[in-house]
């Protein structure tokens, strides 16, 4: 009971804390909105062309964008961890009997909750512009993206706890994010890419989530790529949580 109770209490604190810092929320929402507004027109002429799966660009671009949003939400988690380390927040909770897993997971859960809200807004904005929304597919997509935030969030927190410095942490996050994004087909489907890129992409977990998300957006929840994405993400979640819990317990003994 205590882990659940503590998780609920700390989740509430993190969620409210974000509400009191609206700049983060506005910037967090504006980035994908700007991508939609400024990048989608660039893709218009590619629609229906060779390698482009469907005729409407938003059906391809928005699901990829949502996967990217989840990925960035997760990998940015460590920034807050470092701020919390610096201003004594983690030290403060170290001396309380708060459940350690609850301390680790509650900021990630708050982030997932905010991401859900962002996704609903983005989909609501995209529908009038021609995005074909399938509710069941979207719901399954939300679960998959939540798992992705868990994986990347836990990984990011571990890196932050080991580094403890914002400069080196930012360098690592940026260094990882760019190749992962380009090799996942977020901006353009990898079906348009050369063979070597498509081969390398199979070593990128985000690639599987992006592929599955596009299938899910079309309402096809029983597709094998969906199963594969869940398998990859759940597998990674076991590994990252095992590692992050060890790092966290050492830092927050």
């Amino acid at each position: 009971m205590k882990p659940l109770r503590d998780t609920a209490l700390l989740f509430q604190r993190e969620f409210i804390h974000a509400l009191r810092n609206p700049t983060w929320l506005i910037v967090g929402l504006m980035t994908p909105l700007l991508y939609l507004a400024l990048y989608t027109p660039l893709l218009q002429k590619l629609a229906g062309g060779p390698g482009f799966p469907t005729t409407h660009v938003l059906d391809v671009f928005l699901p990829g964008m949502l996967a990217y949003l989840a990925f960035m939400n997760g990998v940015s988690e460590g920034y807050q961890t470092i701020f919390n380390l610096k201003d004594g927040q983690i030290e403060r909770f170290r001396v309380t009997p708060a459940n350690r897993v609850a301390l680790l997971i509650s900021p990630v859960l708050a982030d997932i909750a905010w991401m859900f809200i962002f996704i609903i807004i983005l989909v609501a904005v995209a529908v009038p512009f021609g995005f074909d929304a399938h509710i069941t597919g979207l719901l399954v997509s939300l679960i998959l993206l939540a798992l992705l935030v868990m994986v990347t969030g836990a990984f990011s927190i571990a890196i932050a706890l080991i580094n403890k410095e914002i400069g080196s942490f930012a360098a690592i996050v940026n260094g990882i994010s760019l190749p992962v994004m380009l090799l996942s087909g977020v901006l353009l489907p990898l079906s348009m890419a050369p063979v070597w890129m498509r081969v390398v992409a199979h070593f990128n977990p985000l690639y599987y989530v992006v592929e599955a998300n596009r299938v899910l957006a079309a309402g096809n929840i029983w597709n094998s790529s969906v199963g594969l994405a869940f398998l990859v993400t759940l597998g990674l979640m076991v590994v990252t949580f095992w590692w992050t819990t060890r790092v966290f317990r050492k830092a927050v003994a």
Partner: protein
Amino acid sequence: MVAEHGTQDTVLKIDNLCKSYVKGKPVNDDISLSLGRGEIFGLLGPNGAGKTTLVSQIIGLAKPDSGSITIEDVDIIVKPGYARQACSFQAQTQVPINGLTAVQAIELVGRVRGGEAKTVRVRAQELLKNLEMEEWTKKSAETFSGGMRRLVAFCMAAVVPGRIVILDEPTNDIDPLRRRLLWQEVRTLVAMGSMVLLVTHNVLEAERAVDRLAIIDKGKVVSMGTPASLKGNGGFNMRLELTLEPKATIQNTPEYIQNTTVTGRRLIGRLRESDINPTIQWACSLKEQRIAEEYSIGPASLEDVYLKGVGRNDSAEIAEKEADHDRVTA
């Protein structure tokens, strides 16, 4: 150092505790303390004496090199989780509560410490009312002064108090009125069954607040007891302070004046109450001979005990500074 307190009511027991961060430079050197239920115990010492390191080990943030710490007979080096439940702690550093109101911050810690929502809410309101902070209850912490933040931090430690409440410099930045209210709340915590460990270098405040105290210097306990017993010093519980004329010296002091120290132009000694009259006569004669400029006799203070225990270098420095000052003004 042998622990003084050792009754069945012992809550916190520390035996032969040693801790060093650099080999050969102990921060805590063979510390033994035994603290009982219902007492306010002061831990006094200058900066760098090893107080915070000692507290860190009690609450399980650091592990000792040797020795033991038990809370209610539970070895908390093996079970630090027990210490976190048994101790509530107000750190010396300001508490990070930005993004929350005072009442939210207090209630959150109360709930995490296992309190029921309704009980915690009532207790939080009670604390804020008793500390005359009602108008701040629902204001965001960003608008708080340093003193307000410290009061909120105190409430966070007191809302669901542990069997041991550790307060590290709780009255820093707090106005005199609320200081008084805070000490009343500390007494209430004791009445509720907690033991309070007060960490401070404010000797005057500690003298009024604590039941017993230990003075720590360079990682060691240099003296321990009640304020009265430490000040009493075998019946020598009065203090003489003589200010000498510039360049005057005193060759001999009467035998009933003990523990005499001369720092610059100031002579300080201890005497029994029964020797006040001859001391006054002696001091008056020094004034007549233009050896002494003025004198005063009063009850000994804990500050004297404290400075004697930890301030050897300070006294020498003060003497040097005063001598310098005399040379400049001559």
